[in-house]
């Protein structure tokens, strides 16, 4: 079964972000937990889907997450370049959150263009790394692999190719094993 990137984004919208509201409101009791209370100019944590909704109704300003900062991302990029393995991302949904905030709240993100470029660079770096490790994985005779720190959107993009390739390879490998058994009989 496959998943649409929009569904991965849907999952990302659960992430908590900080907003600065411009209204008064007691706590809201959602099924997923309580949110608030809200007072003008007092930062409060809400799920991203709610933040985007409030933003569209001009009821808040969204504070970019700490990691969404040019210096911090340059460091992440450097680490990703230097390290042979996948490094831990500051957010498991860095790509989706960036996309959503750039679209719905660009004026709340300082140096948005630079951030957009950095995120894209990091994504590309990790994707190239993923392709090399897939090649190594496939040529070796191991049957499973650890993929720590790979984010859901990265997994989802690689999924159709990678799972199909390994399924086909498993079939071809099973062939060689039954072949061996037959000659031994």
């Amino acid at each position, binding site marked *: *079964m496959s*998943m649409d990137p929009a*569904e991965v984004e*849907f*999952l990302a*919208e659960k992430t908590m972000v900080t907003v600065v509201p411009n*209204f008064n*409101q007691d706590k*809201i*009791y*959602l*099924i*997923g*937990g*309580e949110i608030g209370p809200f007072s003008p100019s007092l930062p409060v944590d809400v799920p991203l*889907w*709610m933040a985007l*909704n409030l933003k569209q*109704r001009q009821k808040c300003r969204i504070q970019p997450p700490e990691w969404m900062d040019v210096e911090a991302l340059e460091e992440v990029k450097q680490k990703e370049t230097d390290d042979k393995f996948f490094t831990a991302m500051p957010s498991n949904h860095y790509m989706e959150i960036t996309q959503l905030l750039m679209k719905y709240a660009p004026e709340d993100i300082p140096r948005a263009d630079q951030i957009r470029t950095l995120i894209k660079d990091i994504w590309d770096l990790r994707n190239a790394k993923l392709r090399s490790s897939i090649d190594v994985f496939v040529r070796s005779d191991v*049957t*499973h*692999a*650890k*993929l*720590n*720190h*790979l984010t*859901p959107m990265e*997994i989802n993009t690689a*999924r159709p190719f*990678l*799972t199909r390739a*390994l*399924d086909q390879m*498993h079939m071809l490998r099973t062939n060689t*094993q039954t072949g*061996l*058994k037959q000659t*031994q009989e």
Partner: protein
Amino acid sequence: MADLTEELEDESSEEGESMTAAEVLQKLEEAWLNEKFSPDLLEIKNDIVDCMLEQIKEMEENIRRAKKGDFRVGIHKMEIDRIRYFISSYLRTRLQKIEKYTAHVLEQEKARGSDETPQMSPDEYTFAKEYSENMENHFKVLALRHMPPNLQALDPKHTVMRPNLDSYVFLRVNEDTAGVLVEEETAEAGEEVIDLEKGDQLIIRYRPVATLVESGAVGLI
């Protein structure tokens, strides 16, 4: 508006511990992901679905009672839409599998003991049975009855579609699990056993981890 985060009794847990609505919602999300990515049909999580539907119903009652222009209504409606999406996508994914592997899932349900929890909900079971009968009838009317007498039956041994349990899945480990048998011993290599560490992510064949998905020790991603 009423406080809806009251503790809910979770019937499925053996220790009888209670769960908050937020925790049940989390379980629903996990069930949705597992169902989406596992090649086989998993056990229906009826209690989770029912509990969430109940929550939605109560919330909608509250919305109806809310004053006109209440700021919170839009937010609540949005959350309900999100939960509805999980539920319907979850059930729809299951229906797709039931349609694809009808004979197989019916066979499996039959093989389960009466003391075991069923794999399908009663509605799903009815659907599977009717779907199977309709397909059989359709084949008969359309083609089989025009065949020579010795070719008028389909041999289930060849025609039944089964999920490929050896297909690869991505998973995240929720609980440390030692001694998972990944590869049976073969002529050229010994068996392969691995330890799963909480937080690890792996790509691996579904078969060796199937029971861990069902128990929740790992979750598909």
